[in-house]
């Protein structure tokens, strides 16, 4: 008519976007991924590249087959691929990495409606399926710098599988950490590609918290509850610190337990989620048959998220509560 644009208020929008958020997550993950490539060599880089590219291809094809708008430009498939790759050993066969990407993107994410709709973290669900299906290749850990000739032994224990029991010459047993604290912090230990370098993971996590991409509630509750339980159980501050730095706890707490779609929305919910993860990780690590429990813990809590959300609704400002609200719930 007169070329005027009419729309409901507000007429301003944030410059933030889903793509930018995903980009920030990728930036936060890069130091740890790079460290993994340094420790575990070209194989690690290949696994990461295969995971990322196959995730993007699967997302692209899924959207075409489902006749939905293309979403690869939001970079969420890149994040999933990167996270999945970082949660695999460097020696993972290529076809296993591709199967993992298929499970993550097609089965866990796209079949449930794509970004924001998945019930579980795609990378975690894929890792768990691979762990149960390809137990051998998923639990063979190469030692850092195995690709250089200097080292004879190529596979070894991880901080979670190595024994703390040592013996003196006279045969008396004593406890000693299998790795130095420096090795634990820098990540010069066996493990998945992106989970060993504690310094890089903490730096990435803090970056995401400071920029407001993730809330500190989940990692603090997750790591805090795990550390508290471990300290009560072992009575040793050293073992507690090693427990926090070992395995997938840091990458899980900062990058997987903070996934928007599969974790609670409110701060209260995030704290419950984090404590649940910490508790489950502690139980599986100490009493379960797997040495590592972070993936299972997060997966289980993902499934509980809708219920946590329902129990942690906010109380709106000035809302007349709770007599009426409880009555309506009771009737349902």
């Amino acid at each position, binding site marked *: 008519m007169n070329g005027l644009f009419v729309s409901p208020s507000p007429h301003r929008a944030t410059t933030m976007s889903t793509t930018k958020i995903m980009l920030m997550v990728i930036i936060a993950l890069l130091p740890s991924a790079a460290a993994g490539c340094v420790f575990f060599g070209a194989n690690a880089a290949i696994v990461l590249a295969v995971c990322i590219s196959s995730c993007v291809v699967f997302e692209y094809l899924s959207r075409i087959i489902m006749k939905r708008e293309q979403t690869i430009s939001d970079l969420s498939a890149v994040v999933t691929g990167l996270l999945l790759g970082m949660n695999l050993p460097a020696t993972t066969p290529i076809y296993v990495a591709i199967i993992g990407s298929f499970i993550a993107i097609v089965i866990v994410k796209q079949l449930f409606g794509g970004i924001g709709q998945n019930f579980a973290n795609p990378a975690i669900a894929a890792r768990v399926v691979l762990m149960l299906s390809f137990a051998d290749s998923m639990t063979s850990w190469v030692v850092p710098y195995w690709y250089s000739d200097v080292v004879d032994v190529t596979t070894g224990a991880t901080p979670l599988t190595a024994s703390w029991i040592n013996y003196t010459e006279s045969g008396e047993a004593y406890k000693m950490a299998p790795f130095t604290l420096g090795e634990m912090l820098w990540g010069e230990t066996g493990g998945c590609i992106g989970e060993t370098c504690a310094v890089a993971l903490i730096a990435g996590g803090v970056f995401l918290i400071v920029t407001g991409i993730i809330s500190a509630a989940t990692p603090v509750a997750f790591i805090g509850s795990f550390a508290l339980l471990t300290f009560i159980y072992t009575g040793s501050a050293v073992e507690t610190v090693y427990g926090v730095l070992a395995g997938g706890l840091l990458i899980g707490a900062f990058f997987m337990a903070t996934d928007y779609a599969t974790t609670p929305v409110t701060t209260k919910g995030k704290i419950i989620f984090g404590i649940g993860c910490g508790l489950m990780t502690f139980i599986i690590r100490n009493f379960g048959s797997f040495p590592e429990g972070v993936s299972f813990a997060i997966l289980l809590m993902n499934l509980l998220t809708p219920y946590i959300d329902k129990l942690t609704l906010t109380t709106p400002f000035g809302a*007349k509560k709770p007599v009426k609200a409880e009555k309506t719930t009771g009737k349902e």
Partner: protein
Amino acid sequence: MNKLNGIHLAHNKGTKKCETIDFPLPKSVIIPMSQHMGAPCDSLVKKGDEVTVGQKIGDSGAFMSAPIHSSVSGKVSDVTDYLLPNGSVCKAVVIETDGLQTVCPDLRPPVINDRQSLIAAVRDCGLTGLGGAGFPTHVKLNYDPAKTPVDTLVINAAECEPYITSDYRELMENPNDIIEGILLVQKYMGIPMCKVCIENNKPDAIELMKEKTAEISSIDIVTLPSEYPQGAEKVIVYSATGRIVAEGELPSHQGVMVMNVSTVSHIYRYSQDGIPLVKRRITFDGDAVTENKGNYFVPIGTRVSELLSHGKAEDAKKILYGGPMMGMCLYDTEQPVTKTTNAILAFRKGELPKTTACIRCGKCVRTCPFGLMPLMIEKAYNAKDVEELKKLKVMLCMNCGCCSYACPAHRPLAEINQLAKGLIPRK
């Protein structure tokens, strides 16, 4: 006292230094008989009638209404149907101006000597809230002091919307009118305390008001942080007094009455000169306006096209009544300035970023001043789940737009909240 959520916006108050000037008298005005919430007025004039400035041309017997006066002197050329921005239709009086601006000879300063005469005077003045929402002021004053005694008058000078500086100009240009207006309302309504609330991005206005009220113990100047939506009624009541206006309540239930700063000074001016609300100050700004940005006294009924040609805003793609957060789009440049128009903003770009899928980041929950959960409301709205919507308290939404603004997926959450309200049956 918990801090309410909100967002930080670029202020864009480029017109703050622009002193208010009279806008050139247009050749013709169109005055709608419905300019705010409440019942529309019936036109008291017909085609061919001669009218003068301040002459009553519309009134209604309904309680929730305010009379309408001619802003110009001239001849009624038509009484036509007019499509309001909210989609309903009312009558509008079109007047060709004679350029003389003859003031109606019947106008007299009102005699105010008690509560009832103050309320009657405010109604005769045709005054509605000048901040934007436009609640008829006499209705606001007409609370029952036996049931809901009011002890605090909150004067809203937050002006938290970007661009708009019309209330700021009132503070700078007419501080004495504001103070006299406050004292008048306090005296006849029996309200012992008054808090004038100004955002801290207007330090000179705060200083000026503090200086002017130094000797007056019943008026406090309150500095508020510049955070949108500081000027929303429930938010400003909470910020100024710590009182929570609960679901289904009016501020008077908490002993508070909120009045816009320009409204209260207009009460004083009317008490002195008896000239009803026929012109008002508006801020004229926006990136499509290439010259003559500023603050203007504009006769009610002036077509926005007059402003646009004054500002050489040929490229305007989106024109707003009010600010960018809660303002309403004009569908036609022939729409007029009304009593509730505090700004006309013209922008070159109309489109907002493309909407993508919700990623459940929770930003909408963390920015909602009232702690609502827009992402859950959207789900419940899509499922048409009325019980869930009631549980989520969607009726509390004031449409401030923080959720839509902050959403990285650019979902129209505020709009959905309003649509969701429509699903809940009214009692």
